[in-house]
């Protein structure tokens, strides 16, 4: 008999988006408030894990057709790229800068290159966590 997990799935559909939103918030809040790439990444991964738990691996692979190892590599490249970018502009490796710009909707917003670095961290953490968990999960031991 198949277990009826309709409640779990329904709740997950809502909750995972709340978690994802919170994760993104915490990621962007990182520069001024507690949070940042690491915890944001972990929390995003948490939302994804919840989805994977509620639905099965096969379904999720169809919905999110992403290889998380590539996400890891992308994150590492991004973090490295910000450092190399600084070199290309004639500064020491990993020099960061920031400025305030008046953006279209957001008004005066701070744009910092450190954020780019943090995106690298964010992606790496998601990739790493998901790679580990999915690898172990797929392993039908």
């Amino acid at each position, binding site marked *: 008999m198949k277990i009826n997990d309709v409640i779990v799935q329904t709740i997950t559909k809502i909750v995972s988006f709340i978690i994802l939103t919170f994760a993104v918030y915490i990621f962007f809040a990182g520069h001024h408030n507690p949070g*940042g790439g*690491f915890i944001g990444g972990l929390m995003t991964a948490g939302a994804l894990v919840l989805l994977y738990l509620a639905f099965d691996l096969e379904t999720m692979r169809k919905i999110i057709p992403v290889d998380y190892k590539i996400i890891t590599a992308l994150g590492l490249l991004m*973090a490295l790229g910000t450092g190399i970018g600084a070199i290309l502009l004639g500064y020491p490796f990993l020099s960061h800068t920031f400025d305030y710009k008046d953006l279209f909707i957001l008004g005066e917003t701070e744009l910092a290159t450190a954020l780019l670095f943090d995106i690298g961290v964010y992606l*790496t953490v998601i990739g790493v966590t998901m790679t580990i968990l999915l690898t172990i999960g797929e392993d039908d031991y």
Partner: protein
Amino acid sequence: MSILHLVVLAPFIFAIFVPFLHKYLRHIHTGWFVFIVPVLLFSYLVQFIQPVMNGQHIHKVLPWMPSIGVSFNVYVDGLGLLFSLLITGIGALVVLYSIYYLSKEKEALNSFYVYLLMFMGAMLGVVLSDNLIVLYVFWELTSLASFLLIAYWYHREKSRYGAQKSMLITVSGGFAMLAGFVSLYLITDTFSIREIIAQAPDITGHALFLPAMLLILAGAFTKSAQFPFHIWLPDAMEAPTPVSAYLHSATMVKAGIYLVARMTPIFSGQAEWFWIISLFGIVTLFWGSFSAVKQTDLKSILAFSTVSQLGMIMCLLGLGSAAVHFGYEEGSFYSVAVVAAVFHLINHATFKGSLFMVVGIVDHETGTRDIRKLGGLMTLMPITFTLAVIGAFSMAGLPPFNGFLSKEMFFTGVLNASTLDIFNMETWTYLFPVLAWIASVFTFIYSMVLVFRTFTGQFQPEKLETKPHEAPLGMLIPPVILASLVLIIGFFPNLLSKSIIEPATASILPTLLGPENSYFKVDIYFWHGFNAELFMTMGVIGVGTLMFIGLHRWSGVYDLFPKRLALNHFYDQGLVQLERLSEKVTRIHMTGFIRDYLVYIFAFFILLLLGSLYTFNAFTYDFEHTADIGIFEVILSLVMVAGALGVVFARKRITAIISIGVVGYVLALFFVVFRAPDLALTQLVVETVSVALFLLCFYHLPVLKVEKNTVPFKLTNLIISVGVGLTVTLIALSANATRLFEPISEYFIEASYKEAGGKNMVNVILVDFRGFDTLLEILVLGIAALGVYTLVKLRLARRDEA
């Protein structure tokens, strides 16, 4: 770089071409090409006799490692010239002999001549270097070349055994010698032998002086096969006979003699030097000649005879060092010993070289070296027989050969020694002449055994593998030359005395030369009247003849000596026991259990850290600056301690995992209490993930061997864990009490918004101030993910294969 440097390096350079000559000119025996080298070197070196005779010393400089005082300086004086002439001269004869001895078709001639040339160059380097380190380098090269040559027939087990034995013994001596050289450098601040000799009178009181002397002597004694290090030489006889003739009679074994002679100006005058060298020499002389008589293999006889003769030269050098005490006078007693040593060195090289070649011929033509199988070869091999008689009679010290002269001088030396009144000599007055005389009797016996057991008596063709006949001419020429030298030196000893012996003696005893006499007056007479020495020789001949005739009656005396006490037994057993012991020690501490290694690591950790806390008296505590303890901290600490105890005492693993989770979450709460929100967030999530992973592991434990016991109690583990905890606590307290500098966090607080535009200081530090660390940390994470991925996937792949 001068031509003299090239003299030393020429054999090495030529050795490079030997394999090509061997490969592309196969129809000519490779030895013919090699033969040119020692001949050229010899004829070049001969022209130095004239200037050296006139007291000139040639010194050529070539910096090698100038910053540490090592330069390849070639220095030619009487001693160096004597040795280099021996090396090149006998080298040429040996190469000529080996051309006829080694078959062109069957043997790997390319490696043979490469090793031989390498040895020749190394030996020239030893005797011509002025720099101790360069001397050491060449010294080890001779050991290496000798090792390769002994194991030339490497498919034979005995060759490999002999090579290993000689390597182990000579190289350990070489290391000791290096230590001695370094000590000399520490004393004198120079590696140059000439400069050390110049400083010699001032350094005798130095604390390192005696250790340096003993260490250098260890090197010399192992190389020159002195008792009890002589055991490698008989086993080295597994080498091809030309090698035995060259290395193990004429040159390499004399490297130790050379070293002692070279160091005499530095160390002579010390009682230790005198006693050690003289005693070791005389004991070696006696033991070598005593052991030679019982051998049945011709080369073994010659090996022990070499040991014995080297002992004699060594003893003479020791006695001669007493001359430094008395000063040189015309016909002085004591320098006679040094002259005798030099003279016998030459004589020994001539007759021992020819004897080895004779034995090689016998071996080559009959197929055996066992004297029990040989006999009656006199009529079949008349020339070889004549050569054997000349060599052996000279070795036995019979007139009119050169051995007689040096033996007489040796007796003079030991008789003088008994009249010495220095170094508490009088109590041991008769030790030297008595031992010397007994040893000469045995020398006489084995020399006679060598000749008469091989060439006279019953001819036993049925025991021989091949039909014996006289050797080819080319094989006879080298021993004929050496034997004629034996005769020429025997009849006209003064041919050599001015040109070779006097300069060599002068370089051994330089301090005795006054300004007016720039060389020693050496005059060697055949006949010096009816004196004690002559009667001693007559006694030797008489008693020796009687004992040789009655050899079978008393040869049982050798069986009395227990095999268990033989030195070879000690060596073999020592090696076996050493291996066994090291295996045992390894097995004791290398158990293969990680828990044991952790015990070592932690025990070392405790000892080192607590030890240094104790020795430097570094433990302090200071609660003045500590903050007040709040109620939350107390409660959280208690919960954490409870969780930790739960981990240790849990009966089931699942309890332990949950307890670990408790500890982790309490830690997160601590972060909250201590106002670290980022850490608290991260800690919460990471703890959750790791507990989940633990549960995963737990779930997959094999069902068969499920153990749900408590942790077994072990006292060592308790002590070590308490020790580690105590160590860390004490260090933390001490570190907290001694704040030497203001923390740099003030800067971060100020700069994080102004410079980096962020208000979250932790994050700014992570991504901006110290972004490099973060970059590498996420790299670590990436590697971990890939690691997990590959571990899991690869395991699957392997399972599919199986």
